[in-house]
């Protein structure tokens, strides 16, 4: 990793270094040796959530009152950087949903009663969470969502369908976006929805190009009744909560993708040093030296943009523009970097036995998930006033 010109930025401390070391060891001992086995099985043990929770991965920035470590975004950055050693992005996305897509929203919007019931067990890994927003007819256009919650006595009664829900099969509860009024933007609310609720069912587990061991589900709600106290935040403010929360999700995505670019570069350089062709190492060929050097420079540029966005988020400053750019730049760059890192492996890279091919397949998701590249560009264009 590049050395900072000023040692004050990024402000990684000894504490962050310990996070990095501990998370790396966890990945190397508990995950990486089994990655291929779990990938082939198409699933990983639920127990990993308990182990990751014990390490503290789900409450990095959460108040210690609810079991978190009460650290900052730099601790999250350190953890993401070390999580590349899983060699298994399927698990990283599962952890990310818990740590950065659901827990922070409950922490921010929940009452103490809801925090006790949902946040603390999620941080402790006892309850797996999923964020349920997308529907068959609503992806990027969140305001078009149609799953409805009508009031009935002291309850909400929910009907509808969700799609592309990561952790959806195994989730114990959902952070569920529903329509509570007609108005497109002012008619959406967020609910905490226990999946043992009557009328809830998981449809097929979706088959995907990558992240094959991560469960991605289609969810159905047939007159599901939950108490109104499970409303998260204010009624009909859900759209704005989601939009605000996307910043954290997108920053986390940029960090996850950066870490796997680093990992694929490490694998490529290692292979390039070991593999001999025409009497020399692959890495001795200028074509590879220059291509990897370009990637190294581009990754560092993307990293510093991401760090800048993290710095703004840490200071609770407006980071919309920077986070969108970081998400756009890292995920697009990852397509080129992982492609070339696979290419240097030749035929071996095309087999599923090498982690580099898994990373290449799995990184394809991220120009689509958490807001497509097209949406990121549109947001940026709007912010520029065009």
């Amino acid at each position: 990793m590049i050395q900072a010109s000023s040692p004050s930025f990024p402000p990684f401390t000894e504490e962050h270094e310990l996070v990095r070391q501990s998370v790396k060891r966890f990945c190397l001992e508990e995950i990486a040796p089994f990655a291929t086995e779990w990938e082939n099985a198409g699933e990983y043990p639920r127990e990993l959530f308990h182990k990751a929770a014990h390490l503290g991965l789900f409450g990095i920035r959460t108040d210690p009152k609810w079991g978190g470590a009460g650290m900052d975004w730099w601790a999250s950055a350190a953890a993401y950087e070390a999580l590349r050693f899983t060699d298994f992005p399927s698990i990283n996305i599962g952890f990310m949903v818990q740590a950065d897509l659901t827990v922070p929203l409950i922490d921010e919007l929940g009452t103490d009663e809801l925090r006790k019931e949902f946040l603390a067990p999620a941080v402790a890994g006892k309850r797996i969470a999923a964020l349920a927003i997308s529907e068959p007819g609503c992806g990027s256009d969140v305001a078009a969502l149609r799953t409805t919650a009508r009031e009935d006595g002291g309850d909400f009664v929910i009907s509808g369908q969700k799609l592309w829900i990561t952790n959806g099969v195994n989730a114990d509860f959902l952070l569920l976006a529903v329509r509570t009024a007609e108005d497109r933007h002012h008619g959406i609310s967020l609910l905490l929805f226990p999946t043992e609720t009557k009328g809830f069912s998981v449809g097929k587990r979706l088959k995907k190009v990558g992240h094959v061991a991560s469960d991605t589900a289609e969810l159905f709600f047939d007159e599901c009744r939950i108490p109104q106290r499970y409303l998260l935040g204010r009624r009909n403010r859900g759209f704005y909560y989601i939009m605000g929360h996307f910043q954290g999700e997108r920053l986390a995505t940029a960090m996850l993708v950066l870490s796997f670019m680093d990992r694929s570069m490490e694998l490529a350089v290692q292979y390039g040093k070991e593999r001999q062709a025409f009497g020399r190492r692959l890495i001795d060929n200028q074509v590879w030296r220059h291509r990897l050097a370009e990637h190294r420079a581009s990754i560092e540029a993307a990293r510093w943009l991401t760090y800048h966005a993290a710095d703004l988020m840490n200071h609770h400053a407006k980071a919309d523009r920077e986070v969108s750019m970081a998400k756009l730049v890292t995920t697009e760059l990852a397509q080129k970097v992982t492609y070339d890192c696979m290419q240097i492996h030749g035929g071996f890279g095309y087999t599923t036995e090498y982690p580099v091919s898994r990373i290449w397949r799995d990184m394809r998701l991220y120009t689509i998930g958490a807001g497509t590249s097209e949406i990121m560009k549109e947001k940026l264009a709007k912010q520029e006033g065009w």
Partner: protein
Amino acid sequence: MNIVVCVKQTPARDSLLRVDAAGKWVSEDDLNFEINEPDAYALESGLQLKEQHGGEVTVLCAGPARAAQTIREALAKGADRAIHIAADHLGALDPLGLAKLMAAALRDEKPDLVLTGLQSDDLGYGQTGVILAELLGLPHATIIMQVEVEGGTLQVKRELEDGWFQHVAMPLPALLTIQSGISKLRYATLMGIKRAKTKPVRTVSAAELGDAATPVLEVARVYAPPRGKRTQLFDGDARESAARLVEKLRFEARVL
């Protein structure tokens, strides 16, 4: 039960080692450091004994400023406090000199048990713990695989050669040097890392601890073993060749 665990910071095991310009040690530029592996198991044993019998675990570490990170890691894993003997050039000390500093740092402590790693991954003398026991006037046992405390007495399992073990009962207080790989090491949790900041670390300089004794050992030269292939072909039938191969692996390569 008051337990002192002695830990050392050594270059990370995956480090690319280069001999320094003076040819007396490895260059520390670009090196990452970590807790000496056997010491990590000593710490784990200490933490487990504390969980079983109560008391506290104090970490004793001699090293330059960078050793603070290893101390923090030990505190993050659950040690209660630490003593840091701040010294830049410990490599110049031999085990006797280092043990004298450590004994002096423990002068006001009243440990029931002192644990060290069996040896360090860098210098590998395997002597520091044993000499420290002598200086503290404690009985000691080495290459420990298992530690139990029963009614104020230690029951330990020592590793001998060829798969043999020795079970020893010994009194407390005592010093044990712990073998690697005897248990699963815990992770420093993020909560633990956060808490470590608030735990006390007493820093003492080597000068405050008095004379470390003139070294009787000196590192004259450090060099990498020569690399090369020496292929040996065995003639004869398979059974005979296999027997010779095993003999060479056992007595020359010493990998069996």
